[in-house]
């Protein structure tokens, strides 16, 4: 039966393509020498170096898991850092602005009410101020505003020295050794 079929096919081929039918059915193509003797080893190596079965099926999930973990670790910290930096910068800026405005107001207040400052002080405030300032300094300050005049301060100090000595006091002073220590 099979042989009969083969004969029919052969007859068909002869009828359809006599030139082709007349050719010998030999494969004259060549593979590199020794290729087939090494193929089994090459295949074995390839199998051994193959990625594990199902590796790529789960690779996408693994990568996504890793990305998600990295995101939960890194991104909030970055955001938090940015927020921190912004809040610190804002705080510093606020401190500078408030400080500047405060100083500016104080300066204006002092300049504006310089003359009236002592007049407006209550007696207790005046007493408190006396504790921190020498009276002469205070007088100079009041007389000349903010600028402290040192020369005038010295002159006033000299003028204020009491020169009305009693002769006995002068004798006592000169008889003492105190002046001997004075170097000229």
């Amino acid at each position: 039966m099979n042989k009969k079929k083969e004969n029919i096919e052969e007859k068909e081929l002869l009828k359809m393509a006599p030139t082709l039918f007349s050719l010998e059915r030999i494969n004259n193509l060549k593979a590199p020498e020794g290729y087939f003797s090494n193929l089994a080893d090459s295949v074995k190596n390839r199998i051994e170096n193959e990625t594990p079965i199902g590796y790529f099926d789960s690779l996408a999930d693994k990568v996504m898991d890793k990305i998600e973990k990295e995101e939960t670790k890194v991104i909030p910290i970055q955001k938090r850092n940015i927020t921190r930096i912004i809040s610190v910068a804002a705080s510093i800026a606020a401190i500078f602005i408030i400080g500047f405005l405060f100083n500016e107001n104080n300066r204006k207040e002092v300049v504006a009410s310089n003359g009236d400052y002592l007049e407006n002080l209550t007696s207790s405030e005046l007493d408190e101020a006396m504790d921190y300032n020498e009276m002469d300094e205070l007088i100079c300050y009041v007389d000349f505003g903010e600028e402290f005049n040192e020369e005038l301060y010295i002159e006033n100090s000299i003028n204020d020295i009491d020169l009305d000595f009693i002769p006995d006091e002068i004798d006592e002073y000169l008889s003492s050794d105190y002046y001997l220590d004075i170097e000229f």
Partner: protein
Amino acid sequence: MQLSDYEIVAQVKSGKDANKAFRELIAKYQERLYWHIRRMVVNHDDTDDVLQNVFVKVWKGLANFREDSNLYTWLYRIATNESITFINKKKKENNIPIDDEPYHLQAGEADYLMGCDEIQEKLERALLTLPEKQRAVFHMKYYEDMKYTQISEVVGTSVGALKASYHIAVKKIENYLIEN
């Protein structure tokens, strides 16, 4: 003594002497599969790459191989599919439309035809004018003398469509041989 296909499959599945049995499978089918692939892919290095992939797939799939189909046709089916996938990939890489000219024009054919006499070279050149799948069908029928039912299992086409495809291929080759 050479193992039968059934024995090879049974040994690989059992795991006992699986490597030895698989080596026997390679030795038994390597040449036939090589020429089947090379008729489509043409270039030897590409053929080697595809053939090794085929055996790797066979090794992986042999445990699940259902013996309701023939090992022989199963191997040819894997080889055909791998070759076509490879050719389509190469065509895509080289911006050649998949249904357009055969891939071998880019692959080079000088090495392929080396060792052929004048008449054989003519026949091989005639074969190279066929689309890859038609070339594979012609190779299985003309050189391998496979039955249409077996080829049908390999390429997944009806016997009628295969006969028509083979007849068209034969006519084209005959015309080429007469014209050249």
